[in-house]
């Protein structure tokens, strides 16, 4: 196992909570507040892991399977994504399909756990989550199609790890379109504004948050940690496209971490300067993301 693989695993395990702390710090700065410490999520996770769990007698094993499977899925998926143009720990032709469906599997279990509680709120949240995920998926896959066409690779590492800017087959126009579309997908998949409001207490308006209302203790910790890792995954996809060049292996790692922090700040700025979309308008934005990637496919076919 190379030193880069070890670094990859370390970054996946350690960095994610920091990014959400930076998002919150940015939002606090916009609101004129001091905000929670940047490391708050680490303390929260440590606290939750030491707590007991309250499990409704109306639920089945599915209720706990939700957080367990989704966290596992996200962690495995994290081994497939190249970070900072270093090939991922696991790479094989077709791994982007495994990547997408590991996330989908986690979602299936999360929504099933939500339905398992029998709460009408959680049911509504599950219904919204599935609807919007279904609309976000084409944007992911059309991006993969365009990249696969341009790089002649069917692996995430083949598509994203190389020096995209230097490759004659890769059109920068396509890269920009995909990067923008995937940034929209990042916001949607991670329940950020304008899709969802991670800070709201209004259960009728929630999408993701409402599905996990009944979870507590280590199960809630697994959900929060999984959400943070997922944020890093999508951030990695966007960063690989937004910085489509390599500058040496060690500088690439540094650039990656800096870019992840910068992206967290950008997400914080987006959340601070715009309101949430009305729920009926969410599909429109997701369809626009799919259209952007569809155009990137058209450009890619031209090469």
């Amino acid at each position, binding site marked *: 196992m190379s030193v880069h693989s070890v670094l990859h695993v370390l970054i996946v395990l350690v960095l994610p909570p920091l990014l959400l702390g930076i998002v919150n710090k940015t*939002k606090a700065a*916009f*609101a*004129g*507040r001091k905000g929670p410490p940047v490391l708050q999520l680490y303390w929260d996770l440590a606290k939750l892991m030491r707590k007991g769990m309250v499990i409704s007698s109306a639920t089945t094993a599915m209720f706990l399977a939700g957080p367990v499977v989704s966290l596992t899925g996200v962690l495995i998926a994290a081994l497939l994504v190249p970070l900072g143009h270093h090939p991922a720990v696991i790479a094989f032709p077709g791994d982007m399909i495994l990547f997408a469906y590991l996330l989908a599997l986690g979602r299936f279990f999360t929504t099933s756990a939500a339905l398992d509680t029998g709460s*009408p*709120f959680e049911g*509504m949240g599950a*219904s919204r989550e599935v609807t919007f995920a279904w609309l976000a998926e084409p944007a992911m896959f059309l991006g993969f199609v365009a990249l696969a066409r341009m790089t002649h690779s069917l692996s995430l590492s083949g598509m994203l790890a190389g020096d995209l800017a230097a490759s004659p087959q890769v059109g920068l126009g396509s890269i920009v379109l995909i990067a923008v579309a995937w940034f929209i997908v990042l916001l949607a998949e991670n329940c950020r*504004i*304008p899709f969802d*409001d991670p*800070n*709201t*207490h*209004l*259960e*009728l*308006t929630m999408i993701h948050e409402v599905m996990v209302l009944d979870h507590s203790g280590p199960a809630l910790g697994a959900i929060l940690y999984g959400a943070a890792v997922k944020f890093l995954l999508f951030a990695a996809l966007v960063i690989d496209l937004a910085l489509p060049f390599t500058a040496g292996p060690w500088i690439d790692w540094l650039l990656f971490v800096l870019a992840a922090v910068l992206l967290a700040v950008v997400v914080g700025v987006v*959340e*601070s*300067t*715009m*309101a*949430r*979309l*009305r*729920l*009926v*308008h969410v599909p429109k934005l997701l369809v626009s993301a799919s259209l952007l990637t569809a155009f990137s496919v058209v450009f890619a076919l031209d090469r």
Partner: protein
Amino acid sequence: MTTRSDPFAALLAIRNGDAVPWSRIPELSVAALHDVFVAATDAELRIAAFFALRRGGDAGALRMLAVLADDAHSRLLLAGAHCPSLEVDSVTPRCPQAQLFEREMHEQFGLTPAGHPWLKPVRFARPLHADPKTAASPSIGVADFYRLGGEGVHEVAVGPVHAGVIEPGHFRFQCHGEHVFHLEISLGYQHRGVEEALLGGPSRGSIRQIETIAGDTSIGHATAYCHALEALAGRHVPAHAHVVRAIALELERLANHCGDLGALAGDVGFLPTSAYCGRIRGDFLNLSALLCGNRFGRSLVVPGGTRFGIDAAMAAELRSRLETARADVTSAVELLWTTPSVLARFENTGALSSEIATVLGLVGPAARACGEEFDVRADHPSGAFRFLQLPIATAQGGDVHARAFVRWLEIQRSIAYAQELLSVLPAPAPAPSREALVLAADHVAVALVEGWRGEICHVASTDHSGRLDRYKVVDPSFHNWAGLAMALRGQEISDFPLCNKSFNLSYCGHDL
């Protein structure tokens, strides 16, 4: 003026803040009173209060008293009716505005309005004069709810315990997917028996109870109570006290409007306005604290005047801090009207037509957002509002945006009004003596105050010894909860919190 005869000549016309002997109030038959209601609502009069009471000397017979607000002529019309039996016809099918008043009479006195379309308990409280030891209170919220049937239709129950730190209330939605067909609101969890506690009064503790009818409207309710008592006692209130009350009322409006605009921004996830308005609300509350030592204006307004006055130094301090707050609130709130994503959420959300607002008898900013042009401060002025006029703020469309915009207009005008009052402050008067007021026997007094949510109506009735034998409180929320239910029809259920916040009604003001 036209020469057309007054269709309400049979009713007793009084001004806001008048007290009249019971003997002058015309007694109609129940049917005649109902006809008056229909004619009145056709003529765009509003039912300010409509309630039942038992008076000594009536041999236990029940009578009803109605107060109609004629905004166009700045007068209140009073009419009473004896109830021959405990079953009367319902006027609700002909005059929907009466629906909650009739339900309340049913609950408080067992008076059954036959033909009422939805005769449910209002607060799940025991009857008004019932002995608490023997009469059990009904279980709150246990009642029939309107239900939709059909495939894919589901029911969502929210509350009485909510996720936020708010009061308890139960909401039941009939939904198809995200689409809301019907919302039914069931309250009563905050019922404390205010009207019951005031019977036989006034006592020294009454003003404390009045101030907590709705904690965010302490000044509004206390002012209405004092106007009613001062009218019954024939007590003169110094001009300085009137001005202090008006300033405190506007400060209360400013704090609540500002806080609500911030909360509306918070509900759509718009951080800047949400954060800054939360702080600026505190600045306005601190002005109330400067005035009387309490951020919610407790203990400021007392029968006969105000406990604290404003001297020149405090007036200067208030004016400079109001000016700072004006600049702060302007920069925070203007962001709402210039951010497209916020406007997209506010516009066409929870729209109420002006027809529905009129039929339901909505009051306050919720009604003015539908283009209804009335405001107690302008139409039935009392206290300082008689001497210094205030323009009425209205908007069109009746949606969340209109309700928010009316609040914003009122913020601007309230600051200007308070500044103007501070610049013409009359000479300070001594605080009123603490001796109890002697109320006129067998009188009725009506006091209207425009609280920040809308019209507050207090009706006080005294028995032959000058004690209160009935004290009726109508909080603006009592009128407006039905408006929220109607605003949700055809909306997305995810927009409910936003619509709810745009009304921001009081649970305890309704539940008394």
